[in-house]
């Protein structure tokens, strides 16, 4: 059973390169994907150790014909073994914790830091989430609904708020989520690196038609973006 599960995990993960979260198209999403692979690698190590011991002990010590009435002697726990499986996980977690904290600081200061925190040339898009659509307002006042248009290779900062309940803004290819709260403003920024059309979704359950609260993100060349944003 374990082998089956394991191979399924591995194969499915290798084919996962097409999966949106693992197919990053922005600087932010890139960092997140690397972090996901790192944590996955460390955790696979743990998983393999446990599975190997599990299968080995089970095969070796399973009750067989003549062992049926054996009473195994009591054993005192080995102090060194106990210390090993306390210290090693701590070390593994430390290896994981350092990049975690670093990435969390890098990305989160962007998420909710002051506007001055980002480079001055970031393009600003105001986002309003409401049951059940998204409104985007660009710097020149142009508005669009459920369609977000961004220029490639240009840092963009979103300032998000909600008109009603809590929503969550998510473009899996481009960045992680940030919640959209009523009466408050949250922030998120990233720099798209490849032209294309990406799915955007509301990730926080927000009522009857939460499912339909989706939008499309079109990343296009600087020139096409200029044309689009100037259009009436």
């Amino acid at each position, binding site marked *: 059973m374990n082998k089956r599960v394991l191979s399924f995990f591995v194969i499915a993960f290798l084919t996962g390169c097409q999966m949106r979260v693992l197919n990053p198209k922005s600087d932010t999403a890139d960092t997140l994907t690397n972090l996901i692979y790192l944590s996955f690698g460390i955790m696979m190590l743990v998983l393999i150790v446990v599975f190997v*011991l599990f299968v080995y002990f089970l095969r070796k*010590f399973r009750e067989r014909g003549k062992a049926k009435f054996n009473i195994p002697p009591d054993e005192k*726990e080995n102090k060194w073994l106990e210390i090993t499986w306390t210290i090693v996980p701590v070390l593994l977690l430390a290896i994981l914790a350092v990049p*975690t904290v670093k990435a*969390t600081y890098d990305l989160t200061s962007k998420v909710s830091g002051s506007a001055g925190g980002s480079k001055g040339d970031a393009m600003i898009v105001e986002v309003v989430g409401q049951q059940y659509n998204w409104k985007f307002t660009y710097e020149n006042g142009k508005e669009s609904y459920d369609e977000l248009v961004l220029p490639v290779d240009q840092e963009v900062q979103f300032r998000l708020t909600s008109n009603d309940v809590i929503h969550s803004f998510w473009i*899996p290819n481009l960045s*992680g989520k940030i919640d959209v709260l009523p009466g408050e403003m949250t922030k998120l920024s990233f720099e798209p690196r490849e032209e294309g059309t990406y799915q955007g979704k509301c990730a926080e359950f927000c009522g009857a038609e*939460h499912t339909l609260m989706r939008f499309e993100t079109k990343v296009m060349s600087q020139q096409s973006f200029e044309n689009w944003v100037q259009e009436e």
Partner: protein
Amino acid sequence: MNGMNVPFIGEVPSDIVVSWIVTILLGAALFWWLTTRRKWPLVWDYMTTTDNRKIGTMYILLSMVFFIRGGIDAMFIRTQLAIPENDFWVFQSQKYNEVFTTHGTVMIFFVSMPLLIGLMNIAVPLQLGANDLAFPYLNAISFWLFVAGGVIFNMAFFFNAAPNAGWTSYAPLATDTFTTGPNNNYYIFGLQVSGLGTIFTAINMIVTIFRLRAPGMKMTRMPLFSWATLITSFLIMIAFPVLTIALLLLMFDRIYGTSFFLGEYGDPVYWQHLFWIFGHPEVYILILPAFGIFSDVISTFSRKRVYGYTSMVVAIALIGLLGFMVWAHHMFTVGLGALANSIFAITTMLIAVPTGIKVFNWLFTMRKGVVRITTPMLFSLGFIPTFVIGGVTGVMLAVAAADYQYHDSYFVVAHFHYTMIGGTILGAFAGIYYWYPKMTGKMLDEKLGKWHFWLFIIGFHLTFMPQHFAGLNGMPRRVYTYTWEDGVFLLNFVSTIGAFLMGASMLFVAWNLYKTHRLTDPVGADPWDGRTLEWTVGSPAPEHPFQPVPQINSIDAYWYSKVERKRLPESEEARPSPIAIQTVAPVLLAGVLIVMSVGFIYGWVWMQIIGGIAALGFFIYRVFNDERKAVYRKEEES
């Protein structure tokens, strides 16, 4: 198809009409069966009992009923999600929201909790050498409050008002501004009433464990299930009052127009803090007793003492403690800031350490043992790899920045089903097969038990393994459909097949129950060759079984007495014996609280007043009818 015109009532969705018909038919069949088999005296006996075994059995029986309910909801969810752009029966939009809200709430509060509490009721006093829980009457109250909560919550569906804001009931969606109608009032009162029962159970367990252990059974000689119960009870005592307060505030927002969670002075994030300060310890409340069951089962069927007893106890305590310091990992995307997110990421990762210690200790308990694969052992063995997968995805989720991607996606859904089913439900099944002789005096059929296990575990992995990948491909949770372009069709389709396999496995349980009770003979006191005190008393466990009380001189005392071919010595010291009575008062209290709750749910003030006066009357009645007074007086005189 979606709506039916019922005479005198009006337009009603067809799923509700079907459930009415099914309920009436099943109710009639049950009534007929009870009457022709002359079972009513037995029902009355159970309704008025304060015996821990009977109450525990009722807990488990009722949780299985709710398990069927929650399971059918899961089938509806999986059928609706089987293919893209599906329109199954009525389960879209708000109806779908009602189904997943009910599924989550029922499975957590009315299946997992009472399954474990039922097993505690049956096994803990027996493991300790106690004659009952410390407060048998309070125990009956706990059980009937759970029944009342379950009835209130399930009533919602029959009156076409099922809660629809998710089992987490986030504000402001759950306030009356955004979800009008009685729906989410049902959620509040269902959980409030049953939560009270849970708190009483925790008090009962703590006092039982501290006061009623057999002579010589030091804390350091207690079986690990009893240890897990003790620490779980402390977690309940701290966490559940927070839920009580959160629900009270939400109730005031909904019913009396306060604004704790929205408006100028309120904040919806308060709800999330309160809910998860309760909610995260809650998942440890659900997993620690299961850990205890696995420890006892693995030790018994490896014919060895549990490896690293002390570190096992320390690990449970550490998990319990750390469990209170991690709640904000449910809120990484709220924007609490980098510092808060980093701290909560690290505390969350730390929980992996004591959990890892436990896993290795279980593995080393098997090492050099004689591993006998019975049904309870099979469930424990299935647990280890399954739960470790759930554990490692837990660490992945703890990586705060990466969680911005996983959060609220199907990756999370997969993770918590791996821990909750892979841990709690497998643990409960292991416990039920293991202690079934103590409940009923019979042993469940091993062959059917193994069928149950294999179908269940294969179905489980088929259902939830693909959901990790659906999440990574951008599928948010709590959506009722998806498109072909989303690229998650195959993953969802496999998931649906797995879910039906799990459903099918439960048919083997039904068959097993039937076969066991019709065709097999009762078993003796110790059918598994056990190690702890519950196997010294008859099957089923009689009321007040330890007379005289055994003297305990080591861990697993019963096992060593068998090895040395001696009887357990009897103790001269007496322990206070809790007083059993027959009383219908707990049932009446449950009825009164249902009346009062319905009054609040629909805002009928006259009904609130009647229910309130009756509840108050109950307390006054109890003050003058305490069965312990006479006994205490006698004790003082002698």
